[in-house]
Structure formats: structure tokens, C-alpha cells
């Protein structure tokens, strides 16, 4: 990556206090712990991991929905991690967050037109005609007719509501969009339509995506690079092809081995990973994966491995990965 990354994250942490019934703090839940990564302009970075690994918290902390405990988020040259919401608003105009079902966030009592105008009223000083022009342009881009502008959300189908939700995010011409589990809960035939829409929009608007998902087969198809998270840490990051074809970290290896492969050997005959992730409030010492790791050695309990850049297109945080 030669050019300056559009988004640079350094040592970002988000710790939530754990309190007992008397509201005394009894510990910390380290949802995101010392995460560093870079996103270049125009790429799709996948963030994968199981539930509770901190991938959504990472997205929300980048967005400023959660305030970072420590670390830096440099977006288009400005560090926005420590800023108060009102201070960072002007930078965050170009950083947008897309929830699982963007259609669900439409106000049922507003017409589609009002919903699409609102972000422009909040963030820009555009006149009404200019806003209307922008809104129509975006609506066409997501594949909806302009006649929909005067309808209410309940008058259009769920898929169309999703498109309106996306249009709403795009009216501000963002450069980076964080997509949080955008395809979970969708049937395969609908999922394809949505994914193709994302890819078309990326090309049309030159977008950069952070694609947060637990669906590895989708990530493999659409992401340029992928970061694997386990209990708040990135355990492996690299080019999608490298990570999927030659996973280095034992966790990535088991994660990939768990996906059913039609026509291949059955996972139920071969899968070996035991147990479930430990609680993030009570992390094991050293490497967080060691309690389930088939390769764990005494060293893993003593020292937490850092991301090693020992391979051409990927880095992994493991003492013994080869």
C-alpha cells in the first residue's frame, strides 16, 4: 500500500466497566483491545470473528458511537478518536455506519423524501432544490424509481426499505462506510442482490468498505483484505486469498475448517476444535486462544504474541505459526 491510508487505527481499545449489583466496578470487559489496522482508499476490508469477538464494538468505536478508551483513529488525516461528538461531526460526515437492516431505521411517519433530506439538512447548507437533486440522483443509484419519494416506508417492500436506508447513508457522499453484518438473516437469493448492490455502489461512488461479518464465504468473495478477530484482538490480517488459502493462526484454521463445504469431506467427521471462547471479562493470560488451541505450549500462557509479518501478504499473532 503506497498511498496514505484513508483510515488508520492505532492501538485502539474499548473497555466497558463490569459492575456488580451495587454499581461498584468489579472489572473490565475488554471488547476491543489494542487493535491497529489500516484501510486504503477504495478497498473492502472484511472483519470476521465469532459473536462476542468485538467486531461490532470496533465498528462502533471507529464511528464514535462508543468513545474509545485509548488509541487513535486517523480518518482522512484527522485524529477523531478523542474528540467529543460535536467536535468530530464535520469529519464523520464522510464516515458512515450501516446497521444490519438499514431499512429498519426509517421513521414510519416520514415519507421517503423527508428521510432522505434529513441527513443533508443536518450536515450541509444546501438549498432545498440542490438537496432534492442530490436525493433523486442517489435514489436512482440504488435502483428505485423517483415515484417512491412520496411513499411511506410501509408502502414499499422490505428489500426496497433496505435500499432507501442505504440511499440515506449515501446522500452525504461518504468515503468510508462501515457495514455491520449487512447480510445476516437474509436468504441466499436475496443476499446476492444486496451484495451486488454494495459492489455496484462501491464502483459508482468510489467507496471504501469495512465489512463486518461472521459469514466467511461472503467475505471471501467480496473483500480485498480480511482481519480475523478473537476476543478483542486481531489474530490474523492479510490479503483475502492468502488468509483463506494459507491461514497461519490456529484460530483462523479452525474457523475455516468449520464451514461446511458441499461436495468435500464432511466437517462433522473431521472437526476437532473443542470448547467455546472464554468470557471476555475473564481472559486467559498470554495468548487468548491458548485454552482451545491444539498447538499451545507453556510460552503461550506467559507471553501474549504480537502480530508477526513473517509472510508476504499476511500477519498473524501466534508464537508457533509457520
Amino acid at each position, binding site marked *: 500500500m503506497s498511498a496514505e491510508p484513508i483510515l488508520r487505527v492505532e492501538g485502539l481499545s474499548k473497555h466497558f466497566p463490569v459492575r456488580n449489583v451495587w454499581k461498584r466496578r468489579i472489572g473490565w470487559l475488554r471488547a476491543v483491545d489494542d487493535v491497529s489496522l489500516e484501510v486504503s482508499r477504495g478497498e473492502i476490508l472484511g472483519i470476521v470473528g*465469532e459473536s462476542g469477538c468485538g467486531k461490532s464494538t470496533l465498528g462502533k468505536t471507529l464511528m464514535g458511537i462508543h468513545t474509545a478508551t485509548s488509541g487513535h483513529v486517523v480518518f482522512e488525516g484527522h485524529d477523531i478518536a478523542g474528540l467529543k461528538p460535536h467536535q468530530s461531526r464535520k469529519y464523520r460526515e464522510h464516515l458512515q455506519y450501516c446497521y444490519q437492516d438499514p431499512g429498519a431505521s426509517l421513521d414510519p411517519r416520514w415519507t421517503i423524501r423527508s428521510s432522505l433530506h434529513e441527513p443533508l439538512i443536518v450536515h450541509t447548507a444546501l438549498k432545498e432544490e440542490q438537496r432534492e437533486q442530490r436525493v433523486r440522483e442517489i435514489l436512482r443509484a440504488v435502483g428505485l424509481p423517483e415515484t417512491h419519494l412520496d411513499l411511506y416506508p410501509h408502502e414499499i417492500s422490505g428489500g426496497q426499505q433496505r435500499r432507501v436506508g442505504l440511499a440515506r447513508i449515501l446522500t452525504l457522499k461518504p468515503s468510508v462506510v462501515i457495514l455491520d453484518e449487512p447480510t445476516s438473516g437474509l436468504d441466499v437469493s436475496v*443476499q446476492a442482490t444486496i451484495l451486488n448492490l454494495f459492489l455496484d455502489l462501491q464502483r459508482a461512488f468510489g467507496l471504501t468498505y469495512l465489512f463486518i461479518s461472521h459469514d466467511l464465504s461472503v467475505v471471501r468473495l467480496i473483500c480485498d483484505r480480511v482481519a480475523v478477530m478473537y476476543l478483542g484482538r486481531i489474530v490474523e490480517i492479510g490479503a483475502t486469498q492468502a488468509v483463506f488459502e494459507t491461514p497461519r493462526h490456529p484460530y483462523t484454521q479452525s*474457523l475455516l475448517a468449520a464451514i*461446511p463445504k458441499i461436495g468435500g469431506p*464432511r466437517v*462433522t467427521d473431521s472437526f476437532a476444535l*473443542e*470448547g*467455546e471462547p472464554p468470557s471476555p471479562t475473564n481472559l486467559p493470560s498470554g495468548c487468548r486462544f491458548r485454552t482451545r488451541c491444539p498447538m499451545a505450549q507453556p510460552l503461550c500462557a506467559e507471553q501474549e504474541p504480537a502480530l508477526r509479518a513473517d509472510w508476504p501478504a499476511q500477519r498473524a499473532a501466534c508464537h508457533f505459526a509457520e
Partner: protein
Amino acid sequence: MESELIAVRNLRVSFASDAGLARVLDGVDLTIGRGEIMGLVGESGCGKTTLARAILGILPGNSARIEAGSIRFDGRDLLAMDQDRLAREVRGKEIAYIPQDPFTAFNPVFTIGTQIDDLMRYKSPLLRSAPQMSRRERSRADRARVLDLLRLVQLPDPEGVLRKYPHEVSGGQRQRLMIAMALLPEPKLVIADEPTTALDVTVQAQILKILKQLARERGVAVLFTTHDLGTAYEICDRITVMYAGQEVEEAPVASFFAQPSHPYTRKLLDSLPSSENGIRGIAGEIPRLIDPPSGCRFHPRCERASEACRGTRPPRDALGPAHTVRCHHPLIAAEQAA
């Protein structure tokens, strides 16, 4: 088949709603043999869960109506049976249920042990095999079986789990408990309704492994509903595909993936994201069941559709041993099928 355990024939179920009558199941046939794992695959709204619930006799009484059909289970017609007898003798005992969501299936205010004891009080297989046993003896014998089974589903510390409340164990462990509880009454059929949808992939692999292994060892038949063809491939012997309330194809797992014959099955397989297929959807939308398309319900989205498809629903054509398809223009005709 003389070894058939359950045979659903021409089942029609409709739901009353404000917008009209929704025909959710439209003449469904399904047969499961003893000890067989049958996958029921389809997109949301295709009627998988309704079929599962109709077999269990737990359709919502105020809105659902069974209009026609029969469900023969082990020599009895479940639809003709008295409701009390069904609840006492069949449901939960001979036909067990594993729900999709292990988070809401437990009562949060009782310990897991209490809830298992309650189950065994009414559904213990010893009630039938050893009716002379006193209650205390029976509960002691049952407790040993419970612990055995909890070990078989690989729960760490089975005694400790019994003293815990449902919120104290993880989702994967709760689904293990659900499998154990479904198997405790020694059922002949287990209906597993998307049992791994709420779980992560690594936990899903563990759960599927346990379910498959236990069903095999105990000769229990499983009706496994899922929208994920990958998990169906993992554990099923045969697969039935449903579309908008009709079953469209039924095949042994190998020929299902190698020689899909119904155009919908083909498209469903093609829409799985993979490097060969890229990202491909199915054009069109799932029809509204209040006013469904006539004939074959897939015809508005099908390139091979003709006048015949609009007119009548295709009959079940046998393509090979245990492979049937309902299509006027199947991709693979009977003579080509292996």
C-alpha cells in the same frame, strides 16, 4: 417402504390473517424412514416451520386450519388423534423438538436440573418400560441416564450444569442441553428446527457432529429444517426442498447436490456464494401466500415455465431410487438420471 416412520400426505394448512387466507402449505408430501436424517430446505416463508409444527400438533389454534391431508406416524393418524392423547403419548415423547432459539426455550427462573426433572416426571421412558417402579426409584434411575446423556453431548461438568440457571450457560451449551432433553424420552423422531442458526460456525460444527452421532447410535430419525444447504449437506441422508408451501424435489444427499432436477433447486445451489458462481441471486421475489401463483408456484420466476406450469401443479415424478421431482420441465429427465 415398510420401514417408513412418518408419512405426510397432501397436507394443506392455511392461516387466517387480516389480509385474507394465506395458503402456507399446499398439498405437501413427505416421508421419513426409521433412523433417517431428512433435511427440509427452503427460504424463509416456504413453510418449513409450519410443516414441523403441524407434525408436532402445535399450530396456533386460533389462526391456523388444517384443510386436508393426513400425517401417519408409526401406524397412527396424528391428525385424527385426540389432542390430549397426542400430548400425553406422542409429543415430547415419541416426537421430540429442538427449537431454533436455545435462548428462549428454557424457563429463566428454574434451574436446568429442575426443568429436566419436570420433563422426566411426565416423559420418562421408564414410565412405560417399568411401570411398577416407585417414583423415587425411577427418579434415581433417570438421574443416572440424564448425567450419561449430558456427558455424551460433551457438556463439561454435567452435575454442575444441573444446578445452574439457563442464563449461566452459553448458547452452545444450551443447545447441547436441548439435544440431550430431546433425546431423554427416547423418541423415534426428533424435529430440529434450524438448531444451529443462532450459533457461531465453530460451535455449529460441534453441535452438528453431536446430533448426527447420537441420532445414528440410537436409530432416531431426524427432521432437520434449515435454510443453509451447507449444514444440510453435513448431516442429512435425504433432502426435501420446499418453495412457497409446496415441496418441489426430494433426493438422497449425493444426487441432490450432483443432479438437482428442479429449476428452483438448481438456482438455490447456484446462489451459494463461491468462487465459481460468484454472487448470483434468484430473479424475482417470493410470492405472497395470500394470493399465490396458480399451478407450480415457482413459475413466475422460472425460465422454463410454460402454459402447463401455470395450469396445473406438476405431479411427483420418480427420477431414480428415492429421487422425485415436481416439475413439468425438469432439468434431468427420468431416463438420464443415474
